[in-house]
């Protein structure tokens, strides 16, 4: 695919910007939290068995996260930017409510793919009292792998 003559971002894509999803229930699972901790060989006593707390990076595996509902404009995608915010520690077994929205969609010309689309989407996680627990935001650079510059493979 060469550089398109006009943007591949449609009005339908733009209409998704700023629209909040319905809340999705997410549970901080003990098995998941301990598996992620063990893969990282994390010895922090705060997340040891029995403390009831999960390391903050469990957000990396939480369902209902940022990619849910993200418009797919081009077939390839690489994570290029990411932000996590934490208001308090995660508790194992607690149920959170995840609300996502697309913040931005924009074209990019140049770089190794010639034309790509940057999609920024975020998710906020709230506890049962409605208090903010954490947020995750990502920017995915979408591209057509066939457009890659020679020599970049």
């Amino acid at each position, binding site marked *: 695919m060469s550089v398109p003559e006009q943007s591949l971002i449609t009005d339908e894509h733009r209409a998704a910007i700023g629209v909040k999803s319905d809340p999705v229930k997410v549970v901080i699972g003990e098995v998941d939290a301990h598996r992620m901790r063990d893969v990282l060989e994390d010895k*922090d006593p705060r997340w040891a068995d029995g403390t009831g707390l999960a390391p903050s990076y469990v957000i990396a*595996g939480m369902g209902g996260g940022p990619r849910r509902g993200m418009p797919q404009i081009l077939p*390839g995608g*690489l*994570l290029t930017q*990411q932000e996590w*915010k934490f208001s308090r520690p995660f508790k194992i077994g607690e149920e959170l409510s995840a609300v996502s929205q697309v913040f931005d969609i924009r074209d990019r010309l140049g770089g190794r793919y010639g034309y790509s689309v940057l999609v920024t989407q975020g998710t906020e996680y709230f506890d049962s009292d409605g208090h903010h627990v954490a947020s995750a935001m990502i920017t995915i650079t979408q591209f057509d792998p066939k457009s890659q510059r020679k020599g970049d493979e």
Partner: protein
Amino acid sequence: MSQRYYEDTNLDDELEPLERTPTTDMAIDFFGRDNPTNPAFSDIEAGKRLGVGGALVPGLLKLSWITQYVSDWAGTEGHVKNLRAAYRRPDVADRPLVLGGRVVDKRVEDGKHIVELEVVTLADGQPSTRANVQVELPAKG
């Protein structure tokens, strides 16, 4: 793991470098073998189709390492509040990454003692991820 205090932290303090070698097994186990992930995390050919040159190291795994790295530096009374990362270059599995960081700011905000760090992952000496991390440290007072 020793405790770090706000008063003992200075601008340009450097964190001890730490080497980690990501593997395809690690990438899959981190997210769980039953959970769907990007095929490029475990399949070298899928990674090559993305132009990566091998199996892709998940950005989420790298950001998790950065979280752990800063959390260990801060000690158990410290709390990582915010991480903002830019993935500058894809990393390939089985190639060592070195984490490094330094203090770039410290301030008191709403009574909280905040230290800001710049953290990088280096592959072959070149930054592949750059992150700004805010951590709240305890004060001695």
